[in-house]
């Protein structure tokens, strides 16, 4: 099952590699990982997307908690939550300008850069929505895709904070 895990960790050099190293050393799946400092500059917030059965997810959570730099952790999958990912897509628009613009509008995307031959489109949403956008663009040739990886936050009054 797919799990989205949020964690707060000390904003120290090497903290990211401790998490990445843990996943590779123990053979856990890692689908995406995003990290940036929070409003408190001593803390970084990371969102991890991983897959595994119940026992593996339990181990992943325990092993993450065991890392000395990890301050707090929340498995968002266990709560109502909001998930967002950003994608930048460069598409060839030779003879397909209207089609691309139309699809971008449907997905609430924005065209950020326009040239004779290519558009750069920004789309935000959950991962399935981004997948759907790429499908919908067909048959327009896609030149580049950049995805941020998912980030998430719990809905309502559950908060991951110290």
């Amino acid at each position, binding site marked *: 099952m797919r799990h989205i895990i949020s964690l707060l960790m000390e904003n120290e050099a090497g903290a990211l*590699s401790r998490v990445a190293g843990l996943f590779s050393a123990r053979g856990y799946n890692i689908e995406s990982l995003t990290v940036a400092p929070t409003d408190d500059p001593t803390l970084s917030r990371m969102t991890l997307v991983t897959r595994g059965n119940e026992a593996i997810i339990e181990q992943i959570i325990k092993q993450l908690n065991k890392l000395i730099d990890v301050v707090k952790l929340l498995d968002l999958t266990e709560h109502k939550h909001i998930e967002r990912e950003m994608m930048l897509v460069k598409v060839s628009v030779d003879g397909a300008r209207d089609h691309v613009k139309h699809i971008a509008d449907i997905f609430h995307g924005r065209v950020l850069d326009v040239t004779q031959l290519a558009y750069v489109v920004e789309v935000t949403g959950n991962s399935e929505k981004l997948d759907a956008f790429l499908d919908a663009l067909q048959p327009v040739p896609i030149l580049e895709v950049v995805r941020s990886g998912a980030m998430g936050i719990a809905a309502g009054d559950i908060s991951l904070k110290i």
Partner: protein
Amino acid sequence: MDSRCIIDSSCVLQNESGLSGKSVKKYYLVLEKMSVELTGAEIFVQCLKDEGVKHIFGYPGGAVLHIYDALYQQKVVNHILVRHEQGAVHAAEGYAKSSQKPGVALVTSGPGATNAITGIADAYMDSVPLVVFTGQVPTSLIGNDAFQEVDTVGITRPCVKHNFLVKDVNDLALTIKKAFYIATSGRPGPVVVDIPKDVTAEKAEYHYPESIEMRSYKPTSDGNSRQIKKAIDFMLAAKQPMVYSGGGVILGGGAEALNELVHELNFPITNTLMGLGGFPSSDRQFVGMLGMHGTYEANMGMHHSDLVIAIGARFDDRVTGNIEKFCPDAKVIHLDVDPASISKNVSVDVPIVGQVEPVLRALLAELRLRKQKPDQDALKKWWTQIEEWRSRDCLKFDQGSDKIKPQDVIQKLHQVTNGNAFVTSDVGQHQMWAAQYYGFDKPNRWVNSGGLGTMGFGLPAAMGVQMANPEAEVACITGEGSIQMCIQELATCLQYQLPLKIILLNNGYLGMVRQWQEFFYDGRYAMSYVDSLPDFVKLAESYGHVGMKIEQPGDVEQALKDAFAMKDKLVFMNFITDPEENVYPMVPAGAGQNEMILV
């Protein structure tokens, strides 16, 4: 007076060793009031003193020269010069395992750090509280492929509890405090502190915090009281219980409490390799070690039990055998300080996260409160069954052989030392025989490399044990393969007059490899015959020690007596043993615990 007054640091260090008790107190009062600037190297030494460190094991080099200079100018912290950095870390492990104090090692950058890694990984696997200091190239050169540079923090990351690179001298004291705190609390483990050379030269105000809190690290101490009640419910209802205790009992100082609980319940108990000594092996309730080379009664008892009470043990693959066949009918209570150990390999019915000692006390209190005993009829039947398994006498061996039997050497070692020696071992057949036949009655006496299985561990570990226990008898049980992996430490033993007794069980083979090749590779002994062995007697003598060669079974006991009578000498005893002896019982890899090969 200006509160930022600077005391000349060399004067600080000199004063300290020369002052009487009263004036030391006064001096510290002065220290408290004034902020003192010290160099990083002096801060390092002062931190060790404030942490109460008496011994460190190390090897100098370019990046740690400032530190060595500061160590040279004081007498409180004794530095033991090893002959290879691997030896330094194993010695620190032996020190820690036999004394319940953290072990400390100091090595230089680059090859100093990489040589230390085997020891660090060993300590990680066996949860040994260590602080390992590594020198690093100056901060300005980090990342430059400088001379003797290696990314120590990167290279050690997967095999430490935590590690630090100290880039600012102002962070040094706090980092060292954190390192000791992390290494010794919760599930202990090695912590590496990497210190660039320029940081040891720069000055900063010295302040060593008395205690420390970390928002990201708060190890659990007391167990959940609901789980403790539930555990007692399970124990009182059990008909065929088995207590299975491991190294955590020894690390957590829980042997006494375990003793009380197991006696109160009258349950059988087995120990893991790391847990030996956690319960007296001479006690009737002890059924021996379990696992791949465990006793018949321990493994059968586990397999047929309806309740496994795991205490400070982690269901290692060498214990469980084939996990699919492990304890098919048992409920499992698991007490461990590390939540990640619980339900990792075996799913647990009653998890208790906490320090072994206080949780065992809480279990005892709860049990006494109930004023109830476990099912006595069932227990009586269970003990009858266990005694029947025990009567199989699975550790018997040929007593009439004209060759020296390794098992016999270990049993005689027990007799000659009255079972009171500290025993270290290397890795292989001799390690298993030591575990099976020495019979440990006290905790912290058995020091071996269980998790990583590091050949070369035994001799340097024994040095650490002897440093921590100067009056004790220390024996290193080893093989001719293992001993050659850290043989250089014989020089260290001479320099520091460490009167170890080295019990070499020399069968001319890498015995455990040979045994597997005999059982599973149709006797094709690929590379397991150790040809061209040195003359160990001459070798010992060339290092300034006493060497003995023992070839007749009838000479074993007297030789051991002679060796232990030489109180201030290291004696290297080369026992020429039966080359084809195997370790029994054996659970072959992939088999269930009840599927043992017996003699």
